[in-house]
């Protein structure tokens, strides 16, 4: 059917056959930019994990005058409550990454299941599942996120659930196309002919084949989820008691940081988000590019706040 960049069944075969067996690691090694991306992601995860131990001050401790500028004691200055910005950034990484990974886990679970079931079973199952996916695709998700977050009440869990449940469609489509192609492979057919159950076939033979693409899907979804969190936070819909990068931007903006000239309260959290998203995008882009050239650039369209996935196809 129609698709800008089509996911055709069998994409893993043919042109990419030679690369199919290359491991994720090999792909990454060939492209140094992804190593940088991985390094950054690892660094943020490390900082987030160790925040309580390495943060110089508490995330709720007032240590000076509100919006005090950077000083040797506080290299990134203080926020509008007189709290050390560097420490806040470290603690903020926790919630931001938690939303990123949490929402992605949900998206992966829902999208992955839908994709695998649709792709593996085909027929009516596929028709119904893909129809549902199509409807989810056209619902304007930004306003929907806002409405649900506002009505449901602000909590970190809600944010994760809302983002996760609105991000799965993309994963579902990518996975389905891959599963369909893998299913037709000789050894999968043989395994089934030999009497392997569906569950066993999926887990033993199909999943390992699509794993690299799943990884690509994961990193890209993480980026979108973190981006969405900052957006919801900016609209005042994040958990008020949780410090995230999005919340830091929101706090600074609420306290008029731009006009107060307190750039140190607003520039660093935004840069952290940007650097993290950029790293995820780099990793995901390269993985997808290497594994599935026909999906090229489709990841860009996963960004719910701007545009949806470009690639679509007839069920």
């Amino acid at each position, binding site marked *: *059917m*129609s*698709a*800008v*960049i089509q996911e055709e069944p069998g994409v893993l075969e043919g042109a990419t056959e030679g690369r199919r067996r290359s491991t994720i690691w090999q792909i990454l090694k060939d492209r140094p930019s992804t190593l940088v991306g991985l390094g950054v992601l690892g660094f943020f995860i490390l900082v987030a994990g160790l925040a309580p131990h390495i943060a110089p001050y508490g995330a709720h401790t007032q240590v000076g005058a509100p919006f005090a500028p950077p000083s040797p004691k506080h290299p990134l200055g203080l926020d509008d409550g007189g709290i050390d910005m560097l420490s806040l950034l470290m603690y903020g990484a926790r919630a931001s990454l938690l939303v990123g990974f949490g929402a992605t886990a949900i998206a992966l679970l829902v999208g992955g299941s839908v994709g695998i079931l649709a792709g593996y079973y085909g027929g009516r199952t596929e028709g119904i599942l893909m129809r549902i996916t*199509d*409807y989810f695709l*056209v*619902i*304007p*998700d*930004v*306003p*929907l996120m*806002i*409405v*649900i977050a*506002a*009505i449901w009440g602000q909590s970190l869990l809600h944010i994760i659930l809302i983002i996760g449940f609105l991000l799965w469609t993309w994963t579902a489509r990518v996975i389905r196309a891959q599963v369909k192609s893998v299913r037709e492979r000789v050894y999968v057919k043989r395994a089934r002919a030999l009497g392997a159950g569906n569950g066993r076939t999926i887990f033993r033979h199909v999943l390992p084949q699509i794993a690299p693409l799943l990884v690509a899907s994961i990193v890209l979804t993480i*980026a979108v989820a973190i*981006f969405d969190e*900052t*957006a919801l936070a*900016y*609209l005042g819909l994040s958990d008020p008691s949780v410090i995230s990068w*999005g919340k830091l*931007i929101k706090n600074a*903006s609420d306290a008029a940081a*731009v006009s107060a000239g307190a*750039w140190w309260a*607003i*520039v660093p*959290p*935004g840069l952290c*988000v*940007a*650097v993290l*998203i*950029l790293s995820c*995008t*780099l990793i995901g*882009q390269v993985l997808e590019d290497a594994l599935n050239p026909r999906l*090229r*650039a489709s990841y*860009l*369209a996963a*960004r719910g*706040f*701007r*545009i*949806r996935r*470009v690639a679509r196809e*007839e069920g």
Partner: protein
Amino acid sequence: MRGADYVIKRTIFAVVTVFVALTINFIIFRAAPGSAVSNLARVPGATHALRAELEHEFGLDKPKLQQYFIYLGQLAHGNLGVSFASQQPVSHELLQALGNTIPMVLLGTLFAIGFGTFTGILAAYRRGTAVDKASVSTGLFFYSLPTQWLGLMLLLIFAGTLPSGGRVDAFLFNPTPLQHILDVLKHMLLPSLTLGLVLYGEYTLITRSAMLETLGEDYILTARAKGLSDRRIVTRHAFRNAMLPITTLIALSLGYIVAGSILIERVFSWPGIGQAVYYSVQNRDYPMLQGAFLLLTLSVVFFNYVADLLYFKLDPRIRE
């Protein structure tokens, strides 16, 4: 797939989608806590009779299912209802907001398309070089910035040079039409630039990959063998083929950009549809929210449909 079959299928899908979407909208908004009436009735000296009367007036006392059919019936007559908050017809309020949003979004999108396509072609034409890497990574960098944050940064940088917010100068009394247009354009620059910057990376990458793909095709190689200049190949052949994904991307993205402009409208105090949604949420203004959702969904479905038809028109493979 057969051509007619394809068009019919896409049309049915579009129609069904609209119906599903408006049903979902109804469920979401009626399931919400926070009664609009309790807000309206909170006036000095308001009686409980008045509250009941208001509930009756807005149909909130009827069973949910009945409310749903009333809602559908009104929609069938093109009646989106009356805003709880302003007591004005929802269609009037929404069209006004949409009218403010569209020019700003359009300018930003045009920038993204123009600049993105240009850098994309440049990157493909000079693939593998520093120009390629710079184009792609700059595009990706802007793509990675949180929209609201980029807006605030631009505000920080350009404040004083360009207006810090709003759609028009509140202090330009009785402007001539030309003055008014220039005034609006001036106010549009920062929000449109924000939108354009976060969007253009997509066009860069799509254009680049489409170009690279066509540059590898047989007929390009033939053209090259014939001794056609690189420039001619790029502009005459490769780009013409790259138009297909670009056009489709434009159609698809238009449907979502309007919905996505909410962050930009918040940053730059732009009185558009995004802000209308934001305030409707704050006021629990169900008719406004439902109307806005319907409008946004319709725009997405419509542009999806347009993209489908465009694809049908541009890609001969489908028609066979």
